[in-house]
């Protein structure tokens, strides 16, 4: 393995990590830009999503690495799993919003944020008690296709995760910018009161943003499972913290910012693991976050939040 190959491989590793963090960061950022709420339950909706996907794949007879699919069956299985997982986790998000957060909407201060931390722990413990704390082997129906670029290896999985991330981001951007519901969301983000007067159903818009944000978390859970082939009750915390950092680094509330932040953190993580050691990766990541925030408090691409005048 030459030095060039080594760095190419680390670049691929970094982009994979980045795609994962970006996907998770999107959900954070979406809810933040509508409600100015940091939704910490997102971490564990992601984890629950992974377990839902694990269950769905198991029901379809896929367990561990024994079944490999190609062609139409693969597309069918994946599409179905994505739909069920995204819908179920989306509904968890709607449930959290409707039952717990809506009564708190008029309350200012950190109450709602603290509540999401509580919900996060409740989800964590439901899975811990119901399913257990050990690492579960996640089904992997993807064929292990890989290409050699010099000494570096690019796997189909790598390309797939980049592709899905880009498609979801473009879809989200299109939805927010060009559809009627998206315009309602942006109007609510700018000024909920005025939006209501203009006939926007603010309650529905907020519920919708929770649905989309949580569905994205579910999708990330499924992708995480397919990529790393495991699901575990504590998977939400480490990945979620990095994703949250990515959202803040890129500028919270800002969709391209979440992507940029995620990719940067992924690249920094793999680069620092190579140069200094895995041991120091967190120190480097969070030092860079601190430095960026000192000079650009709103993050790299600026922050977008509702005007609460």
């Amino acid at each position: 393995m030459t030095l060039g190959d080594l760095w190419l491989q680390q670049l691929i590793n970094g982009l994979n990590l980045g795609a994962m963090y970006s996907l998770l960061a999107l959900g954070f950022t979406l809810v933040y830009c509508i409600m100015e709420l940091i939704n910490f339950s997102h971490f564990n909706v992601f984890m629950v999503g992974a377990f839902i996907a694990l269950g769905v794949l198991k029901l379809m007879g896929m367990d561990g690495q024994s079944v490999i699919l190609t062609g139409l069956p693969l597309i069918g299985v994946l599409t179905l799993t994505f739909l069920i997982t995204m819908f179920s986790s989306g509904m968890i998000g709607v449930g959290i919003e409707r039952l717990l957060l809506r009564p708190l909407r008029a309350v200012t201060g950190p109450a709602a944020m603290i509540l999401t931390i509580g919900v996060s722990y409740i989800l964590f413990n439901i899975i811990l008690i119901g399913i257990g704390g050990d690492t579960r082997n996640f089904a992997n129906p993807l064929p292990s296709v890989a290409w050699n670029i010099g000494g570096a290896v690019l796997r189909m999985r790598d390309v797939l995760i980049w592709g899905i991330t880009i498609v979801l981001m473009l879809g989200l951007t299109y939805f927010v910018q060009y559809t009627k519901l998206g315009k309602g969301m942006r109007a609510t983000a700018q000024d909920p009161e005025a939006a209501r007067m203009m006939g926007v159903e603010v309650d529905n818009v907020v519920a919708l943003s929770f649905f989309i944000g949580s569905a994205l978390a579910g999708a990330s859970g499924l992708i995480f499972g397919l990529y790393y082939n495991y699901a575990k009750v504590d998977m939400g915390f480490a990945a979620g913290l990095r994703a949250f950092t990515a959202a803040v680094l890129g500028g919270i509330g800002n969709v391209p910012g979440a992507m940029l932040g995620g990719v940067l953190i992924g690249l920094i993580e793999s680069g620092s693991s190579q140069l200094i050691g895995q041991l120091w990766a967190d120190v480097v990541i969070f030092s860079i976050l601190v430095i960026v925030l000192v000079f650009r408090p709103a993050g790299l691409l600026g922050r977008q939040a509702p005007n609460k005048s």
Partner: protein
Amino acid sequence: MLSRRSAFKAAAGIAATATMGVATGAQAADRVVKVGMDLSLTGADSESAIRTGNGAILAFEEANKYKEVPGIIWDAVKFDDGTATAGQYDPAQAATNARKMVSDKNYIAALGPQMSGAGKAMSPILSEGNLAIITPSSTNPDITDPKFAAQYRPKGKAIYFRTVTTDAYQGPNMANYMAKVVGAKSVYLLDDSGAYGVGICDSFERRCKEIGVTVMGRDRLDPKAADYSAVLTKIKSLNPDLLYYGGVGQAGVKLAKQAYEIIPKMLKAGGDGILGTEMLKGVGFPAVEGWYATNASPHKDEGDTQVKVFSDKFRARFKDSPDDYTLTMYVAARAIIETVKVLVANGKPVNRDTVRDGLQSIRMTNSLIGPVEFDENGDLKNKVISVFRITKNAGKPLDSIDDQYKYLGIAPMS
């Protein structure tokens, strides 16, 4: 708990014996003695925690059933040192458990913990209370090392006994095995930042340097992180003969999965932290194939009659197969029972002080794991490191340790 009717009978019995005089009085007032069991029941190690704990439960149930020690009823109380936030054992919780045991005089001895990090937190507290503990599986050598006596046994006497050997042997002996038997000439080391992982990795590294195995680097994994591809890519570029991992399953499972993708042909080895069903279930074949693992106790399979009898009893009681640390836990519980039996037979009082001193001098010649005697630090005198390699046995259950970890032999002593 006594039912109302049996309580009446018991009361009647006591009344009857009371009238017969003092000689039989002791027999009627059976004393309940408690043994605390510290296990990592929550989190990554919950499965092995239950299996290990059941070893002791079986021992005490038998002792109660056959009234093995006259006048003594055993009560084994489980304490959980795992927490949801840690996702595995939590030293702070282990310390709390130790305090609870020490504060109740009915606890005459303790069993556990499984994990060295928990042991380090518990040992000083138990020393203050002079409550002896026997660990079935924690192998970090510092806890019993006289060099650290001020830290881990401030009262001076050994209170941390083991029915396993320590990493002072597990790491170096495995280094000997990988170098001399398998033929590895260079190694990259990874640990999982826990007390056990760092310790076993340190001792492996030292021995490698002594015997001329090139250490190409060492790094530390965050057990909660998902992705180790960057460090594995670095290892791939260095191309050592062997990757040695010191740590437990939490990082080990993810490491094994990703190592299979990135460095499939490299030799991979670890300690007893990766000897468990979690590796077989969480990683699965083919990724888990070929990993070497060790165990800090003699390996006896069911070819041994004594072990076969034990395994059958265990399966009948718990619908589960025992593993090597179930055996060491059973033997640890037996050591406590034997000690108290000797005390009672000699008419000595049964309390923490006498039980500790009794354990110190106990000699079990023919236990399930061979001879058991403790040295003045609490370490097992009989030091054996067993080596295994995960080798797929398709005809047997793929998550069974007995069937999928192939026993290779005993690692050479340094």
